């Protein structure tokens, strides 16, 4: 069983990954011959669905691409459409959008930390097992997640598929009283978020690092969430309008998704560890202090420690939400008009989804009808780096039996919080979640 020269691990449906996917790791002559992460469903259906729709419909339609990060899709869509139409929203509306986005970060990070990722580090089968042994911990996680949902319900209208967002702003904006009650919830959430950092920092992390170029949005004076300039840790920066000149996508045979690379540079990584590495100094003092107290340094290149970065970002998002609520002045109008452009135009938008940079481009006809739509989600940008990490990770663990190695690979994939299909949900009446196939790997004659 162990020390076999050739073997092939195939995990048909990845449990506790944000989506539906499969992983194949092939070992030949005691060396890793290939790693493939299959991604089934890129958002091409939605790009096609958007063609011919009115420019004001983009946020509602793209919100359906992901049930975990609908706000990210809405915000990138709004920015791109408004960019096409030459509209900049007033500061009050921009602040409310950032508050809404903080809600999604809190909710998505709490979900990933508590329900999906932490059980790995503690040796539990999943969150049910964790709850059986540490009930109050899981309750804290659900309560934190609910605080994020409370923001999304008040500002976005609903937690899943927020309906209050429109191009140009919102259908309705809250009054100060409504936000005050939200602040009560968030003050309690801040304690939970700080406890979360301490909790996850106590886990043991495999000694594993990568050397990928890191890409995140960067904005002067604050931690980039809803806007910023794409920037890497190796000195590359470019405007969002030039995103597709610098990010090139390739088709690979084993996946329907496109793999992104930095033109002339190679694979790269986006997401929490990239954001932290590029924006650490722009965290709030409390979040920075929490990071320092648990030993997060000036960068984070161990993907397993991403769970700590998510916890630190949750502290930041709760604190930032409280600051935005304290400073809130209801805008003069819930939205500014975004009329049809009157000529053919193209617009670009990028924001930081919980799992990384999310880019949208729309071309509009003079009457506002969408003629082309392009969506580059973070998971397809990260795929090449995830596969590279998995290959090196497996190479150092070939003495493990298949079951254990498969489990560790799954944990490694969860480090990236990949959004793989991001839009489907079925029940199978028989449990077939984990299949480990052991086959002799046939060599070419």
């Amino acid at each position, binding site marked *: 069983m162990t020390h076999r020269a050739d073997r092939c691990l195939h995990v048909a*449906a990845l449990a*506790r990954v*944000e*989506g*539906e996917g499969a992983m194949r790791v092939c070992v030949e002559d005691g060396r890793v011959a290939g790693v493939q992460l299959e991604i089934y*469903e890129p958002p091409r*259906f*939605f790009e096609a*669905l958007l063609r011919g729709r009115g420019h004001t419909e983009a946020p509602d339609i793209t919100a*359906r691409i992901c*049930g*975990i990060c609908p706000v990210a899709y809405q915000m990138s869509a709004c920015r791109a459409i408004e960019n096409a139409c030459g509209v900049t929203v007033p500061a009050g509306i921009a602040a409310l959008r950032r508050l809404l986005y903080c809600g999604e970060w809190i909710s998505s990070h709490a*979900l990933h930390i508590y*329900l*999906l990722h932490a059980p790995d580090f503690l040796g539990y089968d*999943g*969150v*049910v097992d964790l*709850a*059986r042994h540490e*009930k109050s911990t*899981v*309750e804290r996680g*659900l309560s934190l*997640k*609910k605080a994020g*949902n409370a923001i999304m319900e008040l500002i976005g209208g609903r*937690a*899943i598929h927020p309906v209050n967002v429109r191009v140009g702003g919102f259908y309705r904006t809250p009054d100060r009283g409504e936000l005050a009650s939200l602040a009560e919830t968030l003050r309690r959430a801040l304690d939970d978020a700080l406890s979360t950092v301490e909790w996850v920092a106590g886990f043991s992390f495999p000694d594993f690092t990568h050397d990928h170029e890191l890409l995140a949005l960067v904005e002067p004076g604050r931690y980039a969430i809803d806007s910023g300039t794409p920037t890497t840790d190796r000195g590359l920066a470019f405007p969002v309008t030039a995103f597709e000149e610098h990010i090139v996508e390739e088709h690979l045979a084993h996946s329907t998704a496109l793999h992104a690379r930095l033109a002339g540079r190679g694979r790269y990584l986006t997401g929490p560890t990239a954001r932290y590495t590029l924006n650490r100094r722009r965290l709030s003092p409390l979040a920075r202090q929490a990071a320092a107290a648990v030993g997060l340094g000036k960068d984070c290149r161990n993907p397993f420690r991403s769970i700590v970065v998510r916890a630190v970002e949750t502290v930041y998002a709760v604190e930032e939400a409280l600051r935005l609520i304290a400073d809130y002045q209801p805008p003069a109008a819930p939205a500014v008009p975004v009329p049809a452009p009157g000529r053919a135009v193209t617009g670009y938008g990028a924001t930081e989804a919980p799992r990384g940079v999310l880019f949208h481009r729309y071309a509009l006809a003079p009457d506002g009808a969408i003629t082309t739509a392009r969506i580059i989600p973070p998971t397809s940008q990260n795929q090449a780096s995830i596969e590279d990490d998995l290959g090196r990770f497996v190479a150092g663990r070939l003495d493990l039996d298949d079951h254990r190695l498969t489990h560790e690979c799954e944990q490694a994939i969860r480090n990236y919080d990949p959004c*793989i*299909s*991001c*839009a*489907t*949900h*079925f*029940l*199978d*009446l028989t*449990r*077939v*979640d984990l299949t480990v196939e052991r086959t002799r790997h046939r060599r070419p004659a």
Partner: protein
Amino acid sequence: MNGIIVIGVGNPFRRDDGLGPAVITRLRARDLPGATLATSLGETGDLIDLWDGAELALVVDAIRSSPAHPGRVHRLTVGQLSGERARAASSHGMDLGEAVELARELGRLPVRLVLYAVEAGDVGFGLDLTPAVERAVAHLADEITTVVWATQRTRRAQVA
């Protein structure tokens, strides 16, 4: 107790996966006093928040089965759910069985939980239900309406 909640689970952009929300759309057009109507993508924490404290939760969801009989409805109660371990094949830790088990551990199950699991035909991208599933949706909307009314009558009788 907070009465009755009906939760339609699924994604309307994935053809038959959208049958849960389609049932909710039909129910919204009817007079169902005392029943909360909700849609969800089935994420564990969201389901628990929705049904927590309810006297009766009716959950409608799509299932894949092999061989498939599109439109066939399986009615499962909580006890059966835990035994069969109904499980989502994909995405977002969306596992109804896990949501039930977690709610049980946390003491956040509704008093009664009934799952209507409908076998899906086509779950590719698209907006329309397949005809057999469309018929099942119409039938389920009627059945759930009857269940809700019957539950209300029982409650009124108990109060009287």
